[in-house]
């Protein structure tokens, strides 16, 4: 295991992008950080810039407007970066699949390492997904 991976595993910093989600997934992510679930005690931190991130957490079905931005974010991200698709939308576009402005799902455009399904996934599911992802490193 490389040094970078070792460091990443101890304290993954997460950057979160909404690519047209209904924002419930985003709220559940925030919920994970608040007292009841408190993901921060595992060293998982939500950061404000992609350049600091180890994990790219993407919600939403990828709308036309968002695609160039998510691609650019992926390019800007320091490698190795792990990409997590969150929610039914992130995984398979969910209920918005047939929308004319939707060109997802995410894994058509950038490689995805983990999928956390659910609409929205419960905080417990999100935590489990993250733990599983860390387990594969």
């Amino acid at each position, binding site marked *: 295991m490389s040094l970078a991976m070792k460091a990443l595993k101890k304290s993954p910093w997460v*950057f*979160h*992008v*909404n*690519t*047209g*989600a*209904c*924002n*419930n*997934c*985003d*709220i*559940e992510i*925030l*919920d994970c950080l*608040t*007292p*009841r679930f408190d993901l921060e005690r595992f060293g998982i931190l*939500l950061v*404000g*810039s*992609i350049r600091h991130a180890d994990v790219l957490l993407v919600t*939403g*079905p990828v*709308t036309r*407007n*968002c695609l160039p*931005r998510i691609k650019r974010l992926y390019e800007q991200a320091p490698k190795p970066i792990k990409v997590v698709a969150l929610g039914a939308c992130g995984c398979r576009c*969910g*209920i*918005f699949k*047939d*929308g*004319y*402005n*939707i060109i997802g799902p995410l894994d058509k455009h950038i490689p995805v390492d983990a999928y956390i399904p659910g*609409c*929205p996934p*419960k905080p417990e599911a999100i935590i489990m997904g993250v733990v599983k992802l860390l387990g594969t490193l």
Partner: protein
Amino acid sequence: MVKKIPIGPYHPVLEEPEFFELHVEGERVVGIDITIGWSHRGIELLSEHKTWDQVPFLVERVCGICSCSHPFAYVKAVEDCAGIEVPLRAQYIRLIVAELERLHSHLLWTGLAGHFIGYNTVFMWAWKYREPVLDILEAVTGNRNHYAMLRVGGVRRDLPESEVPMVLERLDELEKNNELLTKAIVDDPVIHARTKGVGVFDRKMCRLYGALGPTARAGGYDVDARRDHPIDAYDKVDFDVILCENGDVFDKAVVRQLENFEAIKIIRQCLKQMEPGEIATEVHEIPPGEGLGIYEAPRGEVLHYIRSDGGNMPLRHKIRAPSFNNILTNEVSVVGETVADAGLITAAVDPCYSCTERVGIVDRGDGGRWVASEGDLIRMSQERTEKIRKELQGNRRNG
């Protein structure tokens, strides 16, 4: 010299991505440019290809927080078109879920507002107090969000009698906590200094811009669709419409906090007045015609319009969400304030966007560009709070 600060379209926190461009002269904001539509998913068209009964699942995903308000307005529109009577018990259950949603939405906002001004304690508290509301929702509807509770003609699930004591107990707990939180906000001198007289949007402007919900009521503009166009059991419960007069950020916070008490009051009345009975009427067809549904979502009045040709899908479905009006109010309330306050003010209408992930300052004069991290706006805001706190402490010591 006017500089431009683009904010957005991404921010890790709330709502659909929005793009704001602040025009600043030194510290002062002199103008704002707003672009929305980043998460345009074409929901209206999608809904015109779903059957009447599938649409509620879609419209509750318009916005994750208002996942009862949109279906509520939609089913009212369809019921209006078809002239369907909803059983009384279903009406009360609808009200309970809707008001629970208001509670969780307002607490969520209070927490985020606390975060913006550097009071992370308020953030953590408010979100902790919000959890019991989600617990109730999970017990009553089966899901923490996206309740899938409403259907044309009634509700999908009954509220089991066995859950009622738990709901009441949690509500008592919440009322106490909310009181604590409200007092903490109203009595805190730093919060006063940071939010009073900031981002004023007064009554006249509310009228002009068609502001809705707490944004309007904070400015003394008396609109509340629950009272003005009572749907379902809203005319059978007793509640107050909270009004303030200054329209600044402080008043917007107070309106939301006090509305929480009203929501608790409404839920208690519903639980008391509810009687056993049917929870839905069978609907066989939607006749040709059109219908309008209006409901007061946590952020203001949401409007759904449907047209039917007698088939099994809506011919036209139009949605108007309150944030559309409210976002525009930023055009007035931000101008003249400092950049450190801009984040807070735009957040106060409750599509909070101030956790933008990327801030870049464009200098119009020499074309130079400074790209800063997302946290900058929040950091500036938090530093300002710290400064005010120190000043206040200094005053106290001197006085």
